[in-house]
């Protein structure tokens, strides 16, 4: 066992931090972060920022060289993710392109799709959104209803998607559609968001601007060449895509950073150094985030070693979520105006994490998976 970073990894982290220093504007914290990473402002900024990362070889370092990467291991990729999240995720929605859309196309995409989209993603200038959820199909994707009917060399798509972050500004949508009546008749279409018949409506919510959109498809013509894999391969492709998200968001990293901000603010207000109760809560929170960090690193280590997928990734997610939720409650306890004109970075942390237990598979699904696949408990009836 070894719990330290290598000299190369430390050096790599420095490189990433240097790039952040060079590429982020001086008013990043004040102007951009409060707008959240799904806002139009940040999404547009990500096109230049990611292009800058690409120039420095830091956008897709873990991709194979043939697709513009450096073949770096998962630790490098994860260090990159940690630093980007800690900086407020200036890659905006492009973290999806890099983490799973690109790698999924490498496996299932046609040569033409690879040529077009992998190059686009590696340039850092293309925005994607994810068209999975529908008004009646969230975690239960088998219930999705958006239909694609084959007419010659096109599909005609009708239906709607919801909760579609970044849809307003996206160039492409990695979309699941129903191509038959069976539970698993699901197909992936790469849909240009400027196709006639697509309309996007944003609606307000508890999270920051840009996260909540509904996308309507009315007789949208999508060429058959935009289909990924075969008809009915959607389940297989999505399962593969989500396996790239095994590690998930490094919430412990942003959590510890938010906790640090909270301590600084409490200290400035004279409410930290003489308050053992607050110090106790802070230490307990930091310990929970550290537990989450170790369980997450365990999963990265398994990926690097090409170990068979198991439920440790789900364990790391539930542990991270618990720490995150505890921190949100702590912020609610100690900052009466935290969500009303208080520290903008802490408000951003809070609001971005409101759906933390839902995105990427609900907490309950994670718990089910660990119980049944990890502990071998019988399925609930």
């Amino acid at each position, binding site marked *: 066992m070894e*719990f330290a970073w290598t000299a190369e990894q430390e050096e790599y982290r420095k490189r990433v931090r240097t790039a952040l220093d060079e590429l982020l504007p001086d008013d990043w914290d004040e102007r951009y972060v409060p707008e959240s990473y799904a806002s139009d402002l940040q999404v547009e900024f990500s096109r230049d920022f990611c292009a800058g990362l690409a120039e420095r070889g830091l956008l897709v370092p873990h991709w194979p060289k043939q697709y513009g990467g450096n073949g770096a291991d998962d630790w490098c990729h994860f260090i990159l993710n940690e630093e980007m999240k800690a900086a407020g995720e200036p890659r905006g929605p492009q973290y999806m392109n890099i983490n799973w859309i690109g790698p999924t196309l490498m496996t299932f995409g046609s040569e033409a799709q690879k040529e077009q989209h992998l190059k686009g993603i590696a340039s850092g200038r293309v925005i994607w959104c994810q068209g999975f959820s529908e008004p009646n199909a969230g975690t239960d994707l088998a219930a999705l209803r958006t239909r694609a009917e084959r007419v010659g060399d096109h599909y005609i798509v009708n239906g709607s998607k919801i909760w579609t972050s970044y849809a307003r500004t996206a160039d492409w949508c990695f979309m699941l559609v129903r191509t038959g009546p069976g539970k698993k008749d699901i197909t992936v279409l790469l849909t240009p968001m400027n196709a006639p018949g697509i309309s996007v409506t944003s609606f307000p919510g508890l999270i920051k601007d840009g996260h909540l959109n509904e996308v309507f498809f009315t007789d949208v013509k999508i060429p058959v060449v935009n289909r990924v894999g075969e008809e009915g391969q959607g389940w297989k492709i999505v399962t593969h895509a989500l396996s790239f998200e095994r590690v998930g968001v490094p919430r412990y990293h942003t959590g510890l950073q938010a906790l640090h901000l909270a301590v600084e603010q409490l200290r400035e207000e004279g409410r930290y150094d003489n308050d053992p109760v607050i110090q106790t809560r802070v230490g307990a929170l930091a310990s929970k985030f550290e*537990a989450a960090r170790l369980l997450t690193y365990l999963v990265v280590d398994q990926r690097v070693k090409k170990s068979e997928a198991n439920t440790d990734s789900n364990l790391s997610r539930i542990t991270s979520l618990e720490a995150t939720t505890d921190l949100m409650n702590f912020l609610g306890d100690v900052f009466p105006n935290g969500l009303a004109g208080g520290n903008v970075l802490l408000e951003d942390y809070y609001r971005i994490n409101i759906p933390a237990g839902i995105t990427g598979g609900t907490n309950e699904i994670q718990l089910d998976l660990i119980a049944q696949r990890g502990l071998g408990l019988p399925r609930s009836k």
Partner: protein
Amino acid sequence: MDFHLTEDQQALVSALQSILQDHGELPQGERLSYAYHHSGLQALLKASGFFDAAREMGALEAALIVIEAARLPVLVETGASALVAPMLLPANEGVDGPVALIAGRDLDKAHRNLPIATTALIDLGDDVVVLPVAAGAIETVKSVLAFPYGRFRRAPDLGAGRRIAGAGPKLRQWWRVAIAAEAAGAADSAVNFTVEYVKQRHVFGRAVGSFQSVQHRLVQCHAIARATYYMALRAAWSGESVHADMAACYVQQNVGRLLFDLHQFHGGMGVTTEHLLHFWTYRVRALQAEVGGVNDAARSVATKLWPAPTVAQQGRLVQAR
């Protein structure tokens, strides 16, 4: 980073598990006990050299021994003998085990492992006293906790022991690592024992373990045990006191959840001593308040991550207000 055991570590664990499996059985006559210290197994582990692992291999290996031994329902005192004492005392100085770890401010109270101890390490704050425990000096105290408990019949003469100046912080650091390691092993066994029980036990025509409310809480207990395992090992590996604080703080803040849920899922069987569960859970409960418990551990974490401002910084803070 490498979360896998090396070949040497794996060999150590396998050898230990083999001995524990062959010699660690709970005698039939002790099944209803609150605690059972297996003196034969204790002697065997000592004779086999497992208590020398900290010095010969490292603290992480010693922590692995503590974790593995804690998986048994019978007690073998390893936390203090195999981990804390070797990390605290000079390399040429050994102690006779079992060892009891004692908070000096509570000298007159009952202490874990004192009835079986031949040596006590007494935390006096700044200093530590290494005190031989004389036969007959201890009276046993009855406890539901799954360790032998006892107190000194009369106040011990600390002058009869050897005082190590300035060793208090180091003692508390390794004590916390030992707490986390022992809790990790015991909690993991308690979770596994409960998982097997809820698969077998049926209510309303279905296995208890098929209820989602049971599954979800059991998974949370599993997560606590698993995270504690890595936190304990990381703290042993790094030798950083903040990692020790975090490991103890994490498991001590979760003891309540482990105890309630694991006993709850056993229903009535969970309140008997006919079941083995209490041997693990009430060992974890016993560790909950040691070295100041979660509150002291948490404050120690906070102090190390966010140290008090210097006088100059304080001045600037006051001005800013």
